């Protein structure tokens, strides 16, 4: 049936040709057969091939084309259908799996070739714009984008059905796309101007759909402002009203993100995400489902529930493999993937599984080559993990050299890490100065997570300079903040610090009871290092509070403390934290000495001596170290 229709088309097209055209067709056919003798050619005329039959062949052409780039100019032009297929294929590859698409240079070559044969082929300009974005070329991408819209405007006006409407439409979206481009390159002021223009034109022509898009972008641009959530709520409502599920759930997701930073309870957020998930599954917006899961991972991580975060991250990864089995569109290089994988790497690193973490990072490097859009995510993650390892290992100079890299990717994080290094190197004044500056900056930017971290560092600074009383109010402030924003991980960290401060102030019983409260979440969700620190602190408190006990009871308490120290030692060993192991061993030796267990004492003392010779001493008294 279809074949008959195709033949009919052919015959009609043929009978319309003039003599000279027939002659030309004949010579073209002749050439085609001669050039294609190697392949088994069943259907002859390139431009009249029907869609169904042509597609398979076109794919083959495509492969050939990418192999012999040089020859492409002599292989002749692609037909309209072939060109369209080529464009859509490359575009979807760019979106979903960039590594499989042609390299930027060769793709540009193809496009130039295409445009040479058919300069009115506007879509090619758009692909060229996308391709230029890949290599972060502002000039060429602007040029291509504007060229595309100039061309689009003309085709829009040509088709009578669209008429004036289609023409105005492309104008609005031209301005909107320009805004997006500037936003992508970080020219926020320009982006805002372009966006205003788009909004004005859309308003003038009552295009609510376009206005919705503008509104979403407006939120993206105005994220820093405090009242932006009003905009967003409004946008979500309107988007639902106009039946734009994609925009609506994107809005919900942004809203959830915003609320999470603002300290809303998890159940509400999860509820909202669940609702939007329903919407996604209904409209099968697989991209948004990915984002949603990635977001859940991030939220659980923010709240300090590493197990849940781990589970969500794994879910995203395994879900994708399911989809590829089903033969659906595989989305391989979306941002959500990068985010989930980065979280995975960090979580593994936290648990001391450095080999696994580096494996994940290696995979990230392959999937997101260094110059691609989302590469910065894993770069930052990689550097952070390296930094933490260097700090654990006591290699401060190494950590210091990593700071520059981190600063380049995230200035706030960089400054914080610099302060941490300075502190570890006993440069208290500089560290304090840096931390104070960072604190005011973070408070202005409303980055609560960072504020709490900075406060903790400041507190540590105080007791290391032997003034634990000043540290207390700072710690209480941090505790209040982390409770308010439900950042469990930071809260328990703060409690540890508080307990330590109390220990220094000589109320170990208080500290012990405080620790009992905090130890559970730390052991459940905390990083290995934190677990070790917590156990070490418990042991210290036990020893301190045992001072007033009766001898038999005291011995019991000390035994318990030794047990805890062993546990702490195990934890520290997992993350290669030799310095802390040294402290623990020293402490154990002292305890064994008190208990009169000479053999054990000697063993510990020897271990201590070994470690002490290996490591430089930083002159911080043991007691002043959490």
């Amino acid at each position: 049936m279809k074949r008959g229709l195709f033949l009919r088309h052919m015959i009609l097209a043929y009978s319309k040709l003039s003599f000279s055209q027939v002659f030309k067709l004949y010579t073209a056919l002749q050439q085609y057969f001669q050039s294609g003798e190697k392949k088994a050619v069943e259907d002859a005329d390139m431009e009249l091939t029907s869609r169904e039959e042509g597609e398979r062949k076109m794919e083959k052409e495509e492969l050939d084309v990418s192999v012999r780039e040089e020859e492409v100019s002599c292989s002749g032009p692609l037909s309209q259908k072939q060109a369209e297929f080529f464009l859509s294929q490359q575009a979807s590859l760019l979106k979903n799996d960039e590594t499989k698409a042609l390299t930027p240079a060769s793709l540009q070559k193809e496009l130039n070739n295409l445009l040479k044969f058919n300069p009115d082929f506007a879509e090619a300009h758009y692909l060229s714009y996308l391709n230029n974005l890949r290599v972060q070329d502002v000039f060429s991408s602007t040029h291509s984008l504007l060229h595309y819209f100039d061309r689009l405007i003309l085709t829009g006006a040509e088709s009578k059905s669209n008429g004036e409407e289609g023409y105005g439409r492309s104008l609005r979206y031209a301005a909107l796309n320009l805004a997006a481009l500037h936003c992508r390159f970080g020219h926020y002021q320009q982006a805002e101007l372009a966006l205003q223009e788009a909004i004005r034109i859309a308003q003038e022509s009552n295009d609510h759909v376009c206005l919705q898009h503008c509104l979403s972008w407006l939120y993206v641009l105005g994220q820093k402002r405090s009242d932006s959530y009003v905009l967003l709520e409004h946008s979500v409502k309107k988007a639902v009203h106009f039946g734009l599920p994609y925009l609506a759930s994107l809005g919900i997701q942004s809203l959830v993100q915003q609320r999470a930073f603002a300290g809303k309870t998890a159940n509400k957020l999860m509820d909202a995400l669940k609702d939007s998930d329903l919407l996604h599954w209904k409209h099968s917006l697989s991209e948004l489902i990915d984002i949603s899961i990635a977001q859940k991972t991030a939220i659980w991580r923010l709240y300090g529930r590493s197990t849940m975060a781990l589970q969500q991250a794994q879910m995203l990864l395994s879900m994708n493999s399911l989809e590829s089995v089903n033969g659906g569109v595989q989305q391989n290089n979306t941002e959500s993937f990068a985010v989930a994988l980065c979280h995975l790497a960090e979580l593994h690193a936290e648990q001391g599984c450095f080999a696994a973490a580096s494996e994940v990072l290696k995979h990230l490097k392959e999937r997101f080559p260094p110059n691609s859009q989302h590469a910065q995510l894993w770069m930052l993650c990689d550097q952070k993990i390296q930094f933490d390892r260097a700090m654990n290992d006591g290699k401060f100079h190494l950590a210091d050299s990593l700071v520059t890299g981190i600063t380049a990717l995230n200035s706030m994080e960089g400054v914080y890490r610099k302060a941490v290094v300075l502190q570890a190197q006993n440069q208290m004044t500089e560290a304090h100065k840096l931390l104070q500056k960072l604190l005011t900056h973070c408070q202005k930017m409303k980055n609560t997570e960072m504020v709490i971290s900075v406060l903790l560092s400041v507190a540590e600074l105080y007791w290391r300079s032997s003034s634990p009383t000043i540290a207390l109010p700072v710690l209480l402030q941090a505790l209040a903040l982390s409770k308010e924003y439900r950042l469990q991980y930071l809260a328990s960290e703060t409690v540890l610090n508080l307990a330590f401060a109390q220990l220094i102030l000589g109320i170990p019983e208080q500290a012990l009871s405080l620790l009992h409260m905090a130890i559970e979440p730390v052991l459940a969700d905390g990083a290995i290092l934190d677990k070790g620190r917590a156990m070490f602190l418990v042991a210290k408190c036990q020893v301190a509070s045992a001072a007033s006990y009766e001898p038999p009871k005291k011995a019991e308490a000390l035994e318990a403390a030794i047990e805890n120290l062993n546990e702490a030692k195990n934890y520290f060993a997992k993350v290669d934290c030799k310095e802390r192991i040294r402290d623990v061993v020293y402490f154990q030796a002292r305890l064994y000495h008190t208990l009169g267990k000479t053999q054990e004492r000697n063993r510990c003392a020897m271990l201590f001596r070994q470690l002490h010779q290996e490591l430089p001493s930083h002159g911080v008294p043991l007691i002043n170290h959490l």
Partner: protein
Amino acid sequence: MAASTSVVPVPVTAAAVPVLSTNGDFSDLREIKKQLLLIAGLTRERGLLHSSKWSAELAFSLPALHLAELQPPPPITEEDAQDMDAYTLAKAYFDVKEYDRAAHFLHGCNSKKAYFLYMYSRYLSGEKKKDDETVDSLGPLEKGQVKNEALRELRVELSKKHQARELDGFGLYLYGVVLRKLDLVKEAIDVFVEATHVLPLHWGAWLELCNLITDKEMLKFLSLPDTWMKEFFLAHIYTELQLIEEALQKYQNLIDVGFSKSSYIVSQIAVAYHNIRDIDKALSIFNELRKQDPYRIENMDTFSNLLYVRSMKSELSYLAHNLCEIDKYRVETCCVIGNYYSLRSQHEKAALYFQRALKLNPRYLGAWTLMGHEYMEMKNTSAAIQAYRHAIEVNKRDYRAWYGLGQTYEILKMPFYCLYYYRRAHQLRPNDSRMLVALGECYEKLNQLVEAKKCYWRAYAVGDVEKMALVKLAKLHEQLTESEQAAQCYIKYIQDIYSCGEIVEHLEESTAFRYLAQYYFKCKLWDEASTCAQKCCAFNDTREEGKALLRQILQLRNQGETPTTEIPAPFFLPASLSANNTPTRRVSPLNLSSVTP
């Protein structure tokens, strides 16, 4: 520039053409005339009609030679004699545009002349077929696919000969043309340079070189032969590259040397003046040119542009009638008629004529831009955008098309969007105030007043054509309540107008005087204030205000306020200010803070 040392070894061609060694100065005009006549003959024999025409025109402008001085025709060599019959037949076919036939009969000829004609016929045959193909292509898909099929073969054959150093100057020229058509620009430039070394008299090679050189830097690195032809080339390329000052200097030199009668040079000077928008000078030169050479059609499109700008309807109409009589199927004629209709606000007809011009020559880029303007007038913005885009496709450096695109988007009320286009135009013509004023207006609309100020100031500094930049700048200062600067700007504006001595109606004059009057009034400079207020009374819209202000001044003076005369008012500064208001004034580069391209 090491012009005397050629990069390529020069093959020996002197045997065939004895007098083609040229020197670099113009001391011996008779010798030059001899050479010109000779080359005109040689190019004619080879069917290179335009070069022949150019040489003949130039030769005509020099004084005639006596019989004794006339060059005998170059001797006929053995090879020439062998190919004489074939050549004569083929040339006849060639002249009646039967290129394939000509090529067929020339096949196997050995003499340089016959070989060139052989290759050239094949090239032209390919070009002709290409043009014919475009008419009946198989469909829209093929648009732009048609190409000269002969080019590849020609390139292969010519490159073989080139490597064997068997090509003479004309052969090299043809090789260059083939390379250029195949978009092998770099190779083409090298070959053309070689061609100019071998045969400096052939204007066609120089002209092709002109089309390939895109900026001054490229020009610097060329090693060109040291001959008097180079002066013509340099003058021409300076005009192309918008380096008008240098071009005019070169042309003046040529005229001083003795080419004052050459219509080519006169027309080039007129075009140069047109490019720097010195309309009066250009007009007078064109009028002169038309008297000398009444049937000339070349460059008349430029002339019509000038007439259009000055809205000289009757002259334009006369020109259109005249050209139509001479040859109505010329691109220039269509352009002139289009301009004429446009001036009469019959934009549909104008667009029609520009379209016709494009049919006659699809690569005639001026018509695309002009058509864009017409569509703009017809409020058909999408067609205008299309036309401008086509113009840009033909020549990326066409600032008028970029400017037109900017204007189109400005009309569509997209000030941010059009910034890009204006910026492109500005890049191409950094010293043209119109782009700067347009940029400034856009920035003003976007409320980026700092940028706008920069643009206006720069526009004034490079010599404002429309005299509006200062007023706009002053108004901006007014908005920002920088009264001092605003007053300065108004003062400069008024000085500008008065120093020009034009009686053109300046609408903003009254505004300037009103502001100044009020400014001086506030500064308590009574004398100046009253002068300005009196000036205000001369204009209808400010008369009442002026009178009121005068009364107030009088009142305050009578109250015994001592007029402060110590501060000399900088009102009418010496006229020297107008002297450094030339367009060539050097200014620091415009540093717009926006990062976008």
